[in-house]
């Protein structure tokens, strides 16, 4: 009798011990991160920052996504993660409405959901890590243009299209900043390039011959920047007419190195991944609650929250000095 009681105690102790180790293993948070497409260099660079944050926080990072930008495949992956019972799901939504049903389901199962890069519907996630506000982009573009030209002279603008909502918004904020801060600068021409690099090259060629006093061309759609750079280079005006705009480092690297393009503006994708993991982990730990005004993200410091948007802050400027640190 005594013997069996002892055995029972021993068995209980073993059970307890194994339970404790299981809990210890479980206490490592699992953050699952879903890019729009996992082979895309842009998201791979996001992952680099996310990996760093996961290491610092001691959380496990799952990074999976469709091989192409496929909204249905994104849903499938989220469903798998719900079954797996991860702690945090961070999503860059390919289709706003499409993904939201699956995300709501995840929330019902007690999984913390945030979005980054491209938002889902607001009720399907707790926070959106917003990489750049239109105002922030517009101001950075105009400030950089003013810095490059010494704050005076004529400049031109190439936009993706005259009607696309984001382009209109950015252009509006560039013009507002121009009016407010740089009275000696003048926007003399705005041309659309239909998001085509070739058309941007033709448009910039015509701009250069029509406006001999041009000091800078700003392209606010990504194919526009290399297209403009090639036109300026062919016109023999590299350095005399500055080129800058919104774009990706890889598409502009050769022109930045040749000294044709001065600045390429975007956000730091590594920081975006880093902040997303920190915010997700804080949410899971209960440190980040609805209505919070700020969130801390390791070595990057504190970030502002506007409503349910965690703001990555000022856009990042790629130039000759730093462009080789980025590959996307």
């Amino acid at each position, binding site marked *: 009798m005594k013997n069996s009681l002892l055995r029972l105690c021993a068995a209980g102790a073993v059970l307890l011990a194994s339970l404790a180790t299981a809990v210890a293993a479980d206490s490592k948070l699992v953050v699952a991160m879903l890019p729009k497409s996992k082979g895309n260099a842009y998201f791979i660079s996001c992952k680099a920052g996310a990996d760093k944050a996961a290491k610092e926080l001691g959380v496990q990072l799952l990074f999976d996504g469709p091989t192409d930008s496929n909204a249905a495949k994104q849903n499938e992956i989220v469903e798998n993660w719900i079954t797996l019972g991860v702690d945090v799901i961070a999503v860059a939504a390919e289709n706003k409405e499409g993904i939201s049903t699956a995300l709501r389901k995840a929330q019902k199962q007690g999984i913390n959901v945030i979005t980054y890069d491209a938002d889902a519907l607001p009720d399907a996630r707790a926070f959106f890590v917003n990489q750049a506000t239109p105002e922030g982009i517009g101001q950075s573009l105009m400030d950089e243009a003013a810095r490059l030209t010494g704050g005076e002279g004529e400049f031109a603008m190439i936009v993706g299209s005259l009607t696309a909502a984001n382009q209109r918004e950015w252009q509006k904020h560039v013009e507002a900043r121009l009016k407010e801060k740089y009275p000696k600068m003048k926007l003399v021409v705005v041309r659309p390039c239909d998001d085509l690099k*070739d058309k941007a090259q033709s448009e910039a060629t015509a701009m250069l011959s029509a406006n001999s006093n041009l000091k800078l061309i700003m392209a606010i759609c990504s194919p526009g920047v290399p297209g403009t750079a090639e036109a300026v280079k062919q016109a*023999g005006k590299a350095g005399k007419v500055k080129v800058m705009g919104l774009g990706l480092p890889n598409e502009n690297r050769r022109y930045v190195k040749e000294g044709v393009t001065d600045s390429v503006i975007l956000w730091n994708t590594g920081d975006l991944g880093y902040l997303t993991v920190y915010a997700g982990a804080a949410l899971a730990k209960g440190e980040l609650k609805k209505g919070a005004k700020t969130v801390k993200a390791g070595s990057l410091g504190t970030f502002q929250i506007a409503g349910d948007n965690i703001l990555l802050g000022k856009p990042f400027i790629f130039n000759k000095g730093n462009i080789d640190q980025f590959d996307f």
Partner: protein
Amino acid sequence: MSRYFRELSVVGALAALLLGLAIFAPAFFSPQPLLSLVTREAPTLVVACGMALVIISRQIDISVGSQFSVCSVCAGLLAARGWPLALVLPASITMGALLGAINGALVAGLRLPSIVVTLATMVTLRQGLNLVRQGEFVNMPDAIQWFGLPQATGQLVLVALSVALLIALALAMRHLAAGRFVYAVGTDAEASRLAGIRPQLVTFLVFVFIGALTGLAAMMNIVQSPQVQPLSGAGLELKVIAAVVVGGVAISGGRGNLWGAFAGLLLLACVSPALTHLHIEAYWEKAIQGAIILLAVVADGLRSRKAGN
């Protein structure tokens, strides 16, 4: 005179536009920028020549923009792998001809309507390319630019090549039997068959030909910049069809010539730089181009009504 009224009226409109530019924006004619602008349109002219043939034969090919993209990306990838230009150029033309052969086989072989066939290939090729490249640029070695020639020489070569092709084709269409076959098939396929022409073969070859020209044009475009954007060529089909129609080639087939298509292309291509030079808002560009096309179509409609009466 009246026979070429359509072509001459386009030339007249073009002359008026150029005269206006000479008075209000003489900077338009500074040689170096003008050469650059003309060079930018050289590939479009090559595709427009092909489109004129397709439309004269009473077909249409709206997949040229997608063909152009596929050829550009393939040629760019080969160049990036270090293939010499002497191989990349024929590869691009062959690629275009193959894509054209697919269209041709479906249209001529299965007697399917060309608008549906080329709509299908347009979408398929475009989406396939998106899937493979995901918008990523192809970076090519510098040596490919301007065929390895100095910039100004390279530009002159491209312009000369496109104009030489135009002249050769225009003469061939007028004086060679093969050219007359295209008109015959476009006017009345059944009658041409009775006359001993094989209309299906002519149709097939016309599609192969525009494919090959598109492959050449893609090459003429990628030598103008060291990077290929996979979206390159999007909307090209509308540009060339508009040029051909404005130039007086009847969409119902059998009528029109390449000189008209050339004038139509120049007129439409001038609109955008002209607005930039005249400091007119970019919003007008598409509206003016649309109005030109409308005017051309209305002129055609009135003339055929008169002829009918």
